């Protein structure tokens, strides 16, 4: 009988067909003379989790920081190319970086709450944005903490220092803080790498829930984590995008030899 190839990937749309919320076009980044990223083109689908994996120093965090222009803060960093968000190039000169960062929030590797109370941490963003109405702030704080699955744990200690929370709680607080300014996209730079497994799995559950309302881009060096939480995975190596596929595809049957070598741990 004949060979028959069964069609697969029923639920996951092919990358070519998706309507991206953020799209990187030919992004290159230099740190001084050193080229950190080379011609990255990446479509980020809406209400999905996109994971970026790759070995240390492959440029994955650099890429993430391009999306909300955090690289602007690094001396000597130069970005070329376009990042398109809502039909606008984020690197156009007329873009207001501060309001851009409110739309594309970020969570960092180490939990970095401000040395203030839990409440003040969450209210920081809205206050910066000029909101001073106490009732409204209360509501935002509660809403954000609920979204970050932290409300039940901290509702009785909203005014105690955020530093007193455990590492995992601090990280969820940071996520809640980022949610408080109602972003569209949430960038996460290895958000669970400094946490113990239980705290990590809570964060992962949270990421899964978040994609209902937000688009999440997560950088991780933990491949199992990428496999667990993401819908699409991009593999970066030495500043280049090697492969970008639906996560099952990438972890079951990657197209590129380099991807396979990396994810199976047979590198170099």
């Amino acid at each position: 009988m004949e060979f028959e190839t069964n069609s697969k990937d029923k639920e996951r749309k092919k990358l070519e067909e998706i309507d991206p919320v953020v799209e990187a076009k030919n992004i290159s980044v230099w740190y001084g003379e050193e080229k950190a990223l080379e011609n990255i083109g990446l479509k980020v689908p809406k209400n999905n989790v996109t994971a970026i994996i790759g070995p240390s120093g492959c440029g994955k965090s650099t890429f993430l920081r391009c999306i909300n222009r955090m690289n602007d803060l690094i001396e000597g960093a130069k970005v070329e190319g376009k990042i398109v968000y809502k039909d606008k190039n984020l690197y156009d000169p007329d873009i207001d970086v501060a309001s851009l960062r409110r739309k594309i929030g970020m969570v960092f590797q180490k939990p970095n709450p401000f040395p203030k109370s839990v409440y003040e941490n969450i209210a920081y963003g809205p206050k910066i944005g000029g909101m001073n109405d106490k009732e409204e702030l209360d509501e935002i704080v509660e809403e954000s903490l609920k979204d970050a699955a932290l409300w039940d744990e901290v509702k009785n200690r909203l005014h105690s220092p955020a530093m007193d929370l455990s590492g995992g709680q601090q990280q969820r607080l940071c996520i809640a803080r980022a949610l408080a300014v109602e972003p569209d996209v949430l960038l996460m730079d290895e958000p669970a790498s400094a946490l113990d497994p239980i705290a990590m799995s809570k964060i992962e559950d949270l990421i899964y829930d978040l994609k209902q309302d937000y688009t999440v881009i997560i950088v991780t060096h933990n491949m199992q984590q990428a496999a667990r939480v993401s819908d699409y995975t991009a593999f970066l190596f030495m500043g280049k995008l090697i492969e970008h596929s639906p996560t099952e595809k990438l972890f079951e049957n990657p197209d590129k030899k380099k991807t396979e070598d990396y994810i199976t741990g047979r590198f170099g």
Partner: protein
Amino acid sequence: MSEGRKSYSESLEEVKKDVLEMASLTEKGICSSVEALENYDEELVQHIYNVEDESNKLNLEVEKECMRLVALQQPVAKDLRFIATMMKISDNFERICDLAEKIGKIAQKKGKKDPLKPLVDTNRMIDIICEMLEIVKEAIEQEDTSDLRGLSDLDDKVDDLFSQIYNELIVFMVKDPKDVDEATDLVFVARYLERSADLVAKIASRLVYMVEGERVQIK
């Protein structure tokens, strides 16, 4: 890579060796079974039972090792496909050994009596099955799928031989109802062999998935 990963690749090799061993056992078992049918030999039948026993143990061994690797190493990509495939095909080999055992039982029942008719076509089936098994073994060893495409044709041949034997034996049964019992047994033997060939083809399609990542059907 680290020590852990080194032992990981060694474990993968180990699994492969076990599965190849199973393939050889299967070949031995299925060939001996028809041999026993033709020239009955108590020892040979015992040998078939031993093979079946051995294949059960090996199958369990492969499964345990694969589960251990899945649990501890979180295999992905090629490794994941390899492990999943090895678990499945070792199961299939084991089932072929079961079929060999069943043929052995029929041989035991028949005893030293001459068969109803010369087992020409049955032997041809066995030859083809052995050829298929050789191809599969080679494919596992080399992780190369190029020869597996031919298995589809061989499987078709086995299917044809089965219908031929079936038709012949129906004629025997119609002629003399006394032969119905024995003829039925022979039909069963042919049926078992046909199943074996199907299983080998299934193994081949798993192997294609393992190497190329595409799910195909060979039959």
